[in-house]
């Protein structure tokens, strides 16, 4: 991998940024190959040596190469393969044993893998969901070979459309199968008990009974079917279960399990629910106008970044406090907490390659990044307290350290009056000629108006005359007669001296066919020759398009062209029904002698 040192990279920003920057560029690796989200990043003192490592759940390519990576300084300390994509990752203390080394819990599919000292330690599986008893019945009948696969299919389909409890994966899979595969599928699976599983969608942690920094914590998990579980830190039994109306996507937990806690969950239906210790159902609900992308708790308030490029602040009871408008969509959010300085802010990664720092609704600082940020994590890394870690869309890893001299103004740095107000309006300029013409119009308005009206009348007269003439001599491409409503257009193909002439004739009547028609051509015989200058056309069925081909030979090599007139005639009438004038192209080829 190519790695740039802090100095090399800072070159591109030196001119305008460095002087005023509040951050030191510690490390930038544009090809770190990390594909992850804020939920899959944690900083943790894995070895209990007072030096924090960066733990990243890397989604790899999204299919394979899924890894749990641990960074120390600027390098990878260890990598271990994960079996499935990680949905979330937390670092937590599970017991009181010395040395106090935190464990890493990685949520993935229906499991939580717990690592201690970077070694697999325990695997937790979500409890199975309730299976529809009718479905159970149907399968047990199938097991005893009482029903054949087709009947099974019908019964399951009936269940799927009516039942309150959804079908298990096995039944759903079975319903997808082709009839010839069913037999084998039933044979293979019928001995197994039916299970209905769900997957974990988010993970968080909750202090058990003490508020200390190094207190033992419970895991809190949200599942696809809308349940929230709190797990015992040592035995991994379910201590408490709550349910939500939709699948949770983001979670923030505060408080202590044994005293009082509050779980703020953003759900896939665009609502945020607030759960409390005393009730298994949500206590408060915040209806957002767009989907939440990031959820961060700041003190007692909740800050939510939404897809509509807005940032909202809510109280912990769901009352809206403020709204800030962002210049671009939110991609990642994180809390910036510096307890030593008593400073808290919300970091918001935006799609325009910026990270904005908000304190309440005030924008207090902006960081420019070389790529769109997909995850943000702020905390202690190594032995440095104020470290900002970001990964980018292109897979890069950015580490920045907050300067100890950096001071953030609490003032809103959003601009006052819009700059555009002082930009000159682009009013189109008028020329001297225009002014002269204006003066001329002023002097001669009456004459100009009369001349115009006169010419307009003449134009109308000329147009009307031409129209009447066209109608009288059937020059139009549409025939005006009621008995033979015809439409014709002609196409000339070829470079010359031979051309192919295609006449598309259509009978536009609703039901009556047209018979006894003929086509004749009129042309300069010194210039062109045609094999047949007159032929009959077949009966025309209404609505269909009849392409009629004929060939024209150009006799001249002088590069001149002429008009060929086409007449559609009716037997026994000399006046044509339709006339078309075809402007022949100049022949570009030479006739072979």
């Amino acid at each position, binding site marked *: 991998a190519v790695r740039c040192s802090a100095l090399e990279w800072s070159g591109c920003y030196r001119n305008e940024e460095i002087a005023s920057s509040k951050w030191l560029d510690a490390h930038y690796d544009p090809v770190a190959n990390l594909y992850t989200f804020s939920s899959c990043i944690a900083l943790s003192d894995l070895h209990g040596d007072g030096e924090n490592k960066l733990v990243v759940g890397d989604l790899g390519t999204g299919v394979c190469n899924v890894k749990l990576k641990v960074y120390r300084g600027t390098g990878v300390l260890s990598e271990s393969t994960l*079996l499935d994509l990680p949905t979330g990752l937390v670092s937590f203390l599970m017991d009181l044993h010395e040395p106090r080394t935190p464990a890493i819990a990685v949520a993935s599919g229906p499991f939580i893998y717990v690592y201690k000292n970077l070694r697999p330690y325990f695997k937790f599986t979500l409890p199975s969901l309730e299976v529809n008893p009718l479905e159970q019945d149907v399968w047990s009948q199938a097991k005893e070979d009482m029903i054949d696969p087709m009947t099974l299919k019908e019964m399951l389909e009936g269940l799927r459309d009516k039942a309150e409890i959804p079908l298990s994966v096995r039944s759903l899979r079975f319903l997808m199968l082709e009839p010839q595969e069913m037999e084998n599928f039933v044979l293979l699976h019928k001995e197994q008990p039916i299970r209905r599983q769900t997957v974990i969608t988010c993970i968080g942690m909750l202090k058990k009974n003490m508020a200390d920094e190094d207190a033992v914590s419970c895991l809190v998990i949200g599942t696809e079917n809308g349940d929230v579980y709190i797990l015992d830190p040592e035995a991994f039994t379910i201590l408490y279960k709550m349910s939500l109306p939709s699948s949770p996507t983001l979670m923030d937990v505060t408080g202590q399990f044994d005293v009082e806690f509050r779980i703020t969950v953003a759900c896939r239906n665009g609502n945020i629910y607030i759960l409390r210790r005393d009730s298994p159902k949500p206590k408060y609900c915040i209806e957002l106008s767009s989907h939440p992308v990031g959820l961060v708790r700041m003190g007692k308030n909740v800050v939510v970044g939404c897809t509509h490029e807005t940032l909202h602040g809510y109280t912990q009871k769901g009352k809206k406090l403020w709204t800030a408008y962002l210049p671009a969509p939110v991609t990642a959010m994180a809390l910036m907490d510096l307890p030593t300085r008593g400073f808290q802010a919300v970091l918001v990664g935006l799609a325009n390659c910026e990270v904005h720092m908000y304190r309440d609704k005030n924008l207090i600082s902006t960081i420019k990044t070389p790529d769109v940020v997909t995850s943000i994590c702020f905390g202690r890394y190594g032995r440095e307290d104020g470290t900002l870690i970001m990964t980018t869309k292109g897979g890069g890893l950015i580490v920045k350290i907050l300067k100890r001299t950096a001071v953030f103004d609490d003032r809103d740095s959003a601009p006052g009056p819009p700059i555009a*107000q002082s930009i000159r309006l682009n009013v189109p300029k008028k020329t001297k000629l225009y002014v002269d013409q204006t003066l001329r119009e002023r002097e001669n308005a009456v004459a100009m*108006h009369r001349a115009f009206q006169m010419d307009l009348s003449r134009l109308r007269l000329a147009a009307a005359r031409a129209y009447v003439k066209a109608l009288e001599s059937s020059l139009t491409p549409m025939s005006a007669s009621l008995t033979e409503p015809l439409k014709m257009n002609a196409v000339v193909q070829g470079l010359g001296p031979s051309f192919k002439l295609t006449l598309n004739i259509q009978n536009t009547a609703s039901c009556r066919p047209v018979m006894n028609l003929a086509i004749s051509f009129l042309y300069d015989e010194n210039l062109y020759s045609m094999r047949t200058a007159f032929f009959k056309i077949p009966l025309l069925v209404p609505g269909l398009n009849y392409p009629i081909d004929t060939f024209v030979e150009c006799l001249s090599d002088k590069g001149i062209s002429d008009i060929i007139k086409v007449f559609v005639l009716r037997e026994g009438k000399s006046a044509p029904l339709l006339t078309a004038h075809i402007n022949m192209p100049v022949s570009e080829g030479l006739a072979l002698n």
Partner: protein
Amino acid sequence: MKTDVQLPAATDLKKPRPKKAPELPILERRNWLIHLHYIRKDYETCKAIIKEQLHETQGMCEYAVYVQALIMRLEGKIQQSLELFQSCAILNPKSSDNLKQVARSLFLLGKHKAAIEVYNEAARLNQKDWEISHNLGVCYIYTKDFRSAEEQLNLALQLNKHDLTYMMLGKIHLLQGDTEKAIDVYKSAVEYVSIHNLTFKHTCFILYTMLLGKYQKAFEHLGNALTYDPNNFKAILAAGSMMQTHGDYDVAMNKYRVAAYSVPESPPLWNNIGMCFFGKKKYVAAISCLKRANYLSPFDWKILYNLGLVHLTMQQYASAFHFLSAAINLRPRMSELYMLLAVALTNLDDADNARRSYEQAVQLDESNLLVNLNFAVFLYNQGDKKAALLQFQEMERKVNTQVDSNINTEFDPELVEMAQKLGAALQAGENLYWSKPGKDSKSSQRSSSSKPSSSQQPLGTNQALGQAMSSAAGYSKSMQITAGAEPLSPSTSCHLHRSVHPNLQSQIFRCLFEWCIILM
């Protein structure tokens, strides 16, 4: 909860053990990832994951189909997205969400009746959904069934007091011409909507006060709304047009500069900028801007109207004629347009057509005094005193009805002056509102105060124009005989001046309503 070690699904599929049945992957296992990418607007990655997931589940993963349909709708492939939502509804017939999306797609395709049916079906699954009731109401508006629309929107309001519903309900009442009910709606919106939604609150308040005719208050709130969002195009346009109406052209131009920076190709904006220049008597610039507006929106009659007006002022009567006749073609039932056309024709020495145009204007008009007054002046100058008197009496009648019903008691001083002069010439008009001795004190003060103002040239008055008008054959002569030395020029400048206003006001309304709707 401790379970034996099992290999997770993904690897299981690849190397199934001979005896044990393979663990089947859970259909919903990638939903969280799809959702994560979808809300981050990373649609390309999202589509790739969906494709993979649909391949794995053979199209049975409801959420993947759902998000795919949402993305397609964002990409404008509404018909395809509708089909996908319909298949979602088949996969999960119990979800009102799927039906809601089907209905939404139908709505976007303009199939409002079908959308109503699907929404009703969704409403059966979920009785208490604000969104369904609201959208049903909107659909009913499009099918012009205002009563059902009102019913549904009120139902939506009972479930949840959303800003959007108030806006729609107000709009229905305005569409039906029921201003009082609309005022009630906006009033309750101002009361109920939480303080946090300040921009919305301002919008409601502005509408509320505007409907009550309190433009000053509305303007203050518009200013407040602008401090929260100084770059809001619609608000700028609305505020600017109000400033313009009050003659604050420089301030309005300042605002328009901001708007022109963000939306440089807006026809209403360039129209208003053009009229600002017109107000500042920069006629060439006004024509430039209006022509740009006209280029951007060639079928907007308001712009053509203004172009006609500016060209009349510039004495380019032949050009004015073209713009005005174009405007009339687009909006054939507006009396002011015919009146302006008649003025142009008078100056083009086409008395017959001018008269016809005036007749059309009078026929269409309901309350505009200027139409009758100008017609009367025209007839008088043509020597048709009898017809002129008739028009003058018609004007008197309009004045009296307006005064009686208290719609308007303050008349434009120029108009009053002109009417008095013509009245004297026709030996009529003694019983007009402003010439009655009882109420005279105020209006005579006004008209006397208007005299110095006429010397300092009120807006739109153009001395050169006046001279040109008075030099028309038979025109100044007849006036000199009857009304003494005073030329009749103020009349023409007066109606030019007045006709700016109705146009600008209609512009304001338009901006505000659009603005409110965009805000939501």
